[in-house]
């Protein structure tokens, strides 16, 4: 089920204080003030926001094995527009920290006017939702983040619910669930479950 009924509401907002968008034992996603935001609507309900400001994503893509730890933490500074779809409670809580943005706020982020911001947000939404099915995730009350890294064509995708997490970035895939981890990198596949680890490597 693709999200064809997604709409970006023409209501510019800005964050009045730093906010932790998502956190579990493996991952933390933060956004800092005064980031801009536009609500994402689905059937007249706000299901998320398109942000533009300073965001930070940290994922502990490290697996502890009996032979030693494998992997490295991933840290991403997000300075381009990004999408967050989240459960209703999170969206409502976040709304309390969002106030109306004016033209000077938009100009600070390099937009000439609201139209330009909305266009950028719609483009990102269209690119993200055109092919990908998020309906099931939304109904399962998951967090979804989609963003483009600088000079990257592909969209990075983070999907998480409770202690489960999947992150796709370019050619890499990290998936974690309590006690179980999968890391796929070009030429390398790593699967860990409790104390058992399987590494398939080209080298």
């Amino acid at each position, binding site marked *: 089920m693709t999200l064809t009924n997604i709409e970006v509401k023409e209501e510019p907002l800005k964050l009045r204080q730093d906010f932790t968008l998502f956190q579990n034992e493996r*991952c*933390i996603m933060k956004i800092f003030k005064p980031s801009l935001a536009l609500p994402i609507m689905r059937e007249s309900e706000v299901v998320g926001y398109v942000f533009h400001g300073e965001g930070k994503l940290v994922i502990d893509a490290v697996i502890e094995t009996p032979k030693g730890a494998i992997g490295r933490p991933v840290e991403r500074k997000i300075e381009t527009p990004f999408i967050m779809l989240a459960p209703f409670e999170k969206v409502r809580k976040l709304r309390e920290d969002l106030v109306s943005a004016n033209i000077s706020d938009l100009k600070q982020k390099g937009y000439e006017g609201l139209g330009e911001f909305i266009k950028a947000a719609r483009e990102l939404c269209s690119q993200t939702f055109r*092919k990908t*099915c998020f309906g099931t995730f939304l109904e399962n009350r998951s967090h979804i983040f989609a963003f483009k890294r600088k000079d990257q064509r592909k969209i990075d995708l983070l999907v998480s619910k409770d202690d489960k997490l999947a992150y796709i970035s370019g050619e890499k895939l990290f998936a974690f669930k309590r006690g179980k981890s999968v890391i796929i990198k070009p030429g390398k596949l790593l699967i860990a479950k409790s104390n058992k680890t399987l590494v398939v490597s080209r080298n």
Partner: protein
Amino acid sequence: MSDEEQPSKDDIEIEKLKREVADLKEKLNRLHEVIEGHRRVPKAHRIFIDVGERIRDYIEDVMEDVAEGIAGELEKSVFIGPHGIRVFKHRWKPRLERGELETKIDFSKVASVMSALGSEHRLKILRDLMRGGKYVSELQEKLAGITASTLSSHLDILEKAGLVVQEKVRGRYLITIPGRMAYRMARKLAKICQEGVEIDID
């Protein structure tokens, strides 16, 4: 009509069974065709994952990549040809000459690792981490008398040398695979140096 021309009950029964067998054969053939048709479609294409085209494409790419990697490894020792499967023994490789070996060593990296091991505190940190990941506070407790800033600087040196890694969300420090190897090597070297190498001259 005479009795000879009329088919007996047995003949009718046999004809009926023959037709049933023919029907079953046809059904079986159709099933085979269906199965063969499915076999021709790669398994990955038949899996439906409800996470979207992009992820599905990505997983397919990754699986192809992994399959290529495995195939590449297999090709080194196994040849599958028209005459069956042949297994080749690994080719003999000449040992590197001393000079050649020395040019291949990155001495700055070696020095960085050895320097990271050149501290009693850092060796103790590695020893403690060998028993599992630890928070800074836990390490500080174990290394009685060490200040937080000194401990942090030791951990930085170990991290830069790639012997430990810090989880950024939880903040725990973990020993890496090279870290474990380096600690074991240092312990072994110390033991050899302590005991010395005895030469029997008699």
